[in-house]
């Protein structure tokens, strides 16, 4: 089976989501060809995750022009399946490729597809509260992988680089600028493996020092519940949940968050959930792996001490 994986280029290297898409394709037992656009340093890191070949198309173009390049390669290369990440770029490009080439697109998949006979795959529905098994009706399908659902698996190796010589069509959408960092030097939330999150139980923005301290010791990103970002205690980009961003870290520590269903919808894909809440009846405990019933203002300092001790002895 031949699989073409579109990998987003971040300053010459594959994004983490792109590597995850490669790992996904490799785990299907496929012969994996990665496709990157722009200037790529060496093999961009794709070989290490199992891509045999990296096709590089020079140029700088918008997602529609990218879709044309990918659709052409998909036709020329005789692939059985296309894979990409279900991130912004994947959502812009893959629907177009699906229409251009008449393939079926199944988005946001969370598990390895069954490709023995057609293509059947599981994806989250109802904001993670249920799972749907979906079957494609066409011979060639496109799967976009939900970020952080599969993980990057390094198998070692380097990809053979093939320079492509197509011409990019003119862009209709222009990226004018990227307004700098959200200000925090820490780990970007959607990519974080560890997340420390807090809610209204923290009483006010002045108390976030402890939350940030615990996060920085653990090397975690910070997040918050919706009311906390709505009232301006924390920036909007930290808001997780049904109407904020959905995350799937290895560890989610929720402090003073009640666990409303809309909040859970954005975090229930986390592998391990820790809940710290002074109310033993808080619904979040039902979704938790570890729980502490207690006052955050007493529990957090103890955790910070223990985390310091742990990292110092690691």
């Amino acid at each position, binding site marked *: 089976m031949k699989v073409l994986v579109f990998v987003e280029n971040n300053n010459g290297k594959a994004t983490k989501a792109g590597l995850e898409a490669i790992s996904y394709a490799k785990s299907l037992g496929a012969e994996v060809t990665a496709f990157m656009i722009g200037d790529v340093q060496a093999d961009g890191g794709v070989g290490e995750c199992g891509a045999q070949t990296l096709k590089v198309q020079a140029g700088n173009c918008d997602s*529609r022009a990218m*879709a044309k390049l990918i659709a052409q390669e998909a036709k020329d290369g005789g692939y059985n399946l296309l894979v990409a990440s279900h991130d*912004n770029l994947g*959502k*812009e*490009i*893959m*629907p*177009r490729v*699906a229409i251009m080439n008449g393939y*079926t*697109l*199944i*988005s946001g998949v969370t598990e390895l597809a069954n490709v023995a006979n057609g293509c059947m795959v599981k*994806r989250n*529905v*109802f*904001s*993670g*509260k*249920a*799972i*749907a*098994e*979906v*079957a494609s*009706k066409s011979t060639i399908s496109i799967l*976009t992988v939900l970020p952080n659902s599969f993980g990057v698996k390094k198998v070692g190796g380097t990809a053979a680089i093939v320079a492509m010589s197509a011409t990019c069509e003119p862009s*209709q*959408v*222009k*990226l*004018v*600028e*990227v*307004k700098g*960092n*959200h200000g925090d030097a820490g780990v*970007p939330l959607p990519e974080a*493996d*560890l997340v420390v999150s807090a809610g209204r139980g923290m009483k006010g923005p002045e108390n976030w020092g402890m939350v940030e301290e615990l996060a920085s010791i653990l090397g975690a990103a910070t997040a918050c519940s919706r009311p906390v970002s709505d009232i301006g205690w924390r920036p909007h980009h930290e*808001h997780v949940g*049904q*109407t904020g961003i959905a995350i799937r870290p290895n*560890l989610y520590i929720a402090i003073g968050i009640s666990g409303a269903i*809309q909040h859970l919808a954005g975090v229930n894909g986390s592998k*391990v959930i*820790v809940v710290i809440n002074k109310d033993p009846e808080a619904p979040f*405990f039902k979704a938790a*792996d*570890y*729980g*502490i019933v*207690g006052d955050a203002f007493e*529990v957090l300092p*103890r*955790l910070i001490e*223990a985390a310091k*001790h*742990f990292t110092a002895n690691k």
Partner: protein
Amino acid sequence: MKILVCVSKVPDTTAKIAFSNPTIYDESGVTFIINPYDEWYALVRALELKETLGGSVVVASVGGADYEPIIRKALAIGADEGVRIDAAEKDAFSVATEIASYAKDQSFDLVLCGKETIQYNGGIVPGLIAEMLSLPYVAGASKLDVDGNVVKLEREIATGIEVFESTLPMVVSAAKGMAEQRIPNMRGIMAARTKPLATIASANATEQSEVLQFSMPPAKSGCKMIAPEDAASLIQLLHEEAKVI
């Protein structure tokens, strides 16, 4: 400016999720709402643009008669006209095909969708529509401004904010930040009763995928409780037992 807002109907965010057979969502006792991304962000921003630039806002849905209260609510919030395309929501491809075949000769300047539905979480209907209509598309925008023919968009990413520029006509899917929720007032609700709501025939779009079965995620094996005095032991457990740090 003529704006199309695509709105879908989803179970209320607190609705219980159950299936009456492996492929059918059990709707008994469930209240339906407009998909939050469609209502709070796409529709409200469309209304704001109309209020400053003039024009009209059409809301369109693909679905059965049970969609009418949803469209009426969008009219109560302020849309001028509703369109229900009388077709089943078979999959993203069929929905997009129905919308594109309705929109193709309506010369909309802007097609606004939500970033995804909270029911299917597909996030691809707007991209499919964009390609079917050969229009530029930006996914998940948190800010949208129109200046003459030029559209300025912002999108929040992990490390900052991307700023895009494109031209009308185009398709945009809306994320949090684009607008603030509006609660319909009595006048809006009254006015909505007499606003036009047309039912148009399906283009008989086919689907490309099918749901074989729904299932529930595996239940958590139970929560291990730690006494607050022993909070420090949590770090050890996360390292040795859960192996996440």
